[in-house]
Every structure is written in structure tokens, then in C-alpha cells.
């Protein structure tokens, strides 16, 4: 993959994600982590090769069908990408509104999800009034509100402190336990190491896979997320 006439940022990538898997994606800045995620969430197309998502060849899939594939992929960004003029509730409800749901259809799910990520008390607040950790949890809530098959997170812990990073990681792990395929791009080697999850490492555009390192060593969340009943 390359941007315009620039040198290739990804090359010889051969990657298949097993449904329900959990991977960290690591690599130095500029290694192509964000580019690989962009390919998976169909914000870019490969300049060479084949990209198949949900059994659709993205190179030949009509543009009009791509939105329906994107609805099966949740994305969390380091910079959150929240809409500042919408409340936390409306930010989370956005994908459901886009999918054509009415308020009475999505209101219960959105409130439950906001409570699940710990924003039950802040659901009518606007993003500029939220802390970094709250924004990231809001971003996760928006990404998973459609119950996506794949959740991609690009440096989701980059703007939060260590305690909040662990809390966010627990949320993502819990989502994975519920069947969601999760890929997290992260710089945080400590977090990656402590998670004990398999790692995909990018170096100069090449991808290498490393199996799970061992049992996780981060503390369990005292509240069972499965009990929230959302997913």
C-alpha cells in the first residue's frame, strides 16, 4: 500500500483475522500501523494485492456497498473523533441513527452502553467537557453500539494515564470475550506485555506474527461486564 507517489508503507502483508481473535498491533511510529487499520476499516484501498473483508473483495465491491460493511466494523481512535456539538448520548447513538433506527429503538441500548463504560452520569454532557479517559470510553461505546464483528482501536490508550489504560483494556478484552474480533494498535509495550495477547508487529512495512506471550498480569475488573447484558 502506498499514498499517491510516496514509497510503500505496507508490503507483502498476508493477514487473516480469525473471528473472535484478539491481537495487538505494534511497531514504531511510521511503521504502518494506522495504514493497516485503515485498510481493515475500509478507509483506504490497497494499491496492490487483494483485500477481503467479510468475504467481500474490496477491490471489486461497489462503493455503495462499502457503508454496510463498515457498519460491521467499530473503530476507536487515539484522538477520539467525537462530534463536539452532540451530547455523549447522541455521539453513541450516531451509528444507530445512520442505520435508520428511531429514538425509541435505540434509547435503551445507548443508555445501557453508556452506563457499561462508566458514563451513565455524563450522558448529556458534551465531549469538550469530558476528560481524556471519558472521551476514550465514549469513543469505545460509539464503536461497539452496533455490535460490530470487528473492533479496531488505534492507540486507544495513548491519551490516558496508566490506570485508565488498564480500564480501557479490560473493556476491550471483555468485548472480545463476547465474540468480537479485536485489533489494538499500541505503542504501550508494557500494556502489550501485561495483556499476554498475541501480537502482530510491523517493521518497515512488513508484518510478523507473535503468538500469545502468556497469562495476562493486569488486574481483573471487579464488575463482570457480561452482567451488563448489553452484548
Amino acid at each position: 500500500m502506498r499514498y499517491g507517489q510516496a514509497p510503500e508503507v505496507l508490503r507483502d502483508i498476508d493477514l487473516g483475522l480469525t473471528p473472535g481473535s484478539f491481537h495487538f498491533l505494534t511497531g514504531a511510529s511510521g511503521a504502518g500501523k494506522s495504514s493497516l487499520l485503515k485498510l481493515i476499516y475500509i478507509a483506504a484501498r490497497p494499491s496492490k494485492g487483494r483485500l477481503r473483508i467479510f468475504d467481500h473483495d474490496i477491490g471489486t465491491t461497489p462503493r455503495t456497498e462499502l457503508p454496510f460493511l463498515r457498519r460491521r466494523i467499530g473503530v476507536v481512535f487515539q484522538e477520539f473523533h467525537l462530534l463536539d456539538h452532540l451530547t455523549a448520548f447522541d455521539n453513541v447513538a450516531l451509528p444507530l441513527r445512520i442505520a435508520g433506527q428511531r429514538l425509541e429503538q435505540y434509547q435503551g441500548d445507548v443508555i445501557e452502553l453508556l452506563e457499561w463504560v462508566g458514563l451513565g452520569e455524563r450522558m448529556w454532557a458534551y465531549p469538550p467537557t469530558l476528560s481524556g479517559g471519558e472521551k476514550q470510553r465514549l469513543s469505545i461505546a460509539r464503536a461497539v453500539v452496533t455490535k460490530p464483528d470487528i473492533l479496531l482501536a488505534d492507540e486507544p490508550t495513548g491519551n490516558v494515564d496508566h490506570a485508565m489504560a488498564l480500564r480501557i483494556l479490560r473493556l476491550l478484552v471483555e468485548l472480545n470475550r463476547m465474540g468480537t474480533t479485536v485489533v489494538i494498535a499500541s505503542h504501550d509495550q508494557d500494556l502489550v506485555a501485561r495483556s499476554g495477547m498475541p501480537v502482530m508487529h510491523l517493521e518497515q512495512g512488513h508484518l510478523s506474527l507473535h503468538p500469545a506471550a502468556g497469562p495476562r498480569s493486569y488486574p481483573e475488573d471487579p464488575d463482570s461486564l457480561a452482567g451488563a447484558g448489553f452484548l
Partner: protein
Amino acid sequence: MSAADDRGPDPAASILPSRDFRDPGLVFTVAVLSFLACIAVIAALAADRAAQGWARQLSGSATVQVRPVGGETGAEAAARAAEAVAGVRGVSEARAMDRKSAEALLEPWLGKGNIPADLPLPQLVTVELAPDHPATSADLNRALAAAHLDATVDDHSRWMADVRTSGDIVRLSAAVACLLIATAAGSVVAFATRQGLAARRDVVEVLHLCGAEDRFVAQLFQMRFAALATRAAAYGALAAAAVGAILRLTGGSDGFSPALPIAWTDLLACLAAPVLGALVAALSAHSVAMAILREQV
């Protein structure tokens, strides 16, 4: 907890920010264009009414110019001509014009009291034609020839053609002006849509990531600019209607002037401006947004 925390869910929450610092400029521009379009239409309706009135007057009358022959005076020849054409089928009334009336026709050019008493004036007969089956100039010529009169009939056909042409030109000019104004308004909205899409790239990106179709995103911009254009066009239409009303009041029952007889009903044309403004803006915004979005992945 902030004041905003008291809010409840808003199913109509605008996905695009409801305010933009560019909005006042766009509203002003569209309002001015709407004002100009409404004034053009009001003026065209009034001018058309004047042209139709003049054409009606000209088609319902004719003028006979009589040249006395032999020892007959001009007044005697005119009286005979009036009598001759009065008997023609399709003539309602024929009347020899006296000198005083003929002088009155010259006053706009020569001034009141400036016409010498010995100035020879043409002997005229005014003929009112029956509205249903008006006599033709050939019918009048035959009657005058039968009465052995040297006379020329003017059935105003030359003037009527000019008046009708003028009316057509006014109508066409108004239509062209409205078309140009609508095109200008469409271009302004298209430009604003491009700017809006560029300025809201972040929002558009989030919408796409959330699975929004191009049509959904384009509709957001379409609705937004249609609403703005409706408001702006309504402002312009109101201003134009106010100007039209002032001109109508100033001119009394004849309207602003004989050449521009504005009627109260003409002002109703302003009601169309907000609807047309919304339509032009919606079409323009939608097509531009779709074209830009299709260029993306």
C-alpha cells in the same frame, strides 16, 4: 455536572453543527438574490399588464385622417367621414375630432397655448370598433371611398406589433433575469457546500466510519442549505414585497406609473421565492456533495 447534563435525548439533534460562521454571509447573499428576483418578477408582471392594456386599447379603435377636397372644409369632410364609417358593420362609434381635441394631442410636444390659431391641423375621425366583430381597415376604406372622401385609415396595427413585441421582451427579460439569479444562487450554495464539506471533513469522516452512505451525508448538507436558503429567500421576498407595496401605495389605483401598474396580486409572486430558493439550494448542495463524496474511498 454541567448545565448540559440536564438535557434529554434529542432525536432531531443536528448531526451537522447547527451554526457556522459562514452562514450570515450566505444568508445575506441569497437574500439579495431573492430580492432582485422578486423585484424582476413584480416589474415584469406590471409591465406585462401595461402592455396588454395598451394592446387592448389599440385593437379596439382606429383613426381616420381626412383630407378635404374641392370646396369642402376640413370640418365638413371629417363630419362626412364620421357619418360614412359609423354605418359600417363592426363600428360602435365614429366621431370627428374637433380642433380643441386635436390641439390637446399636440400639447405634449408643443406646450399648452403654443399652438397658433392658423396652424393647419389634420382632420381626424376616431373610430371605436365593436369588441366582438371589429371592422377591418379594408371595410372602413371601402366606406370612405364610396363616400368619395380622400382619407387614410390607421388601425394601429403597427403600434400594436410594437407593443406586443415590447411585452414579449419584458417577459423574456424577466425570465432570463430570474434564471440568471437562480443560477447565481445555485452557484453560491454549491460554493458554500464545497466549503462546508471541507470545513466539516472531520464530521464527514466520522459519518463514513459509522457506516453512513454518501446519500445520507449529502442529505445532511442538502437539508442544511435548503433551510438556510428558505430563510434567506424569505427575507429577500419580504423586502421585495415591501418595496412593491410602497410603490403600489405611492402610485394609487393606477399602480406606480402607467408604464408599471403594480397590482396587489403581483406581490403574491414573492411567495414562490422561499420554495424556489430551497429547491435550488437543495439540488445544488446535493449534487455537489455527492460529486465530492464519490471521489473519496
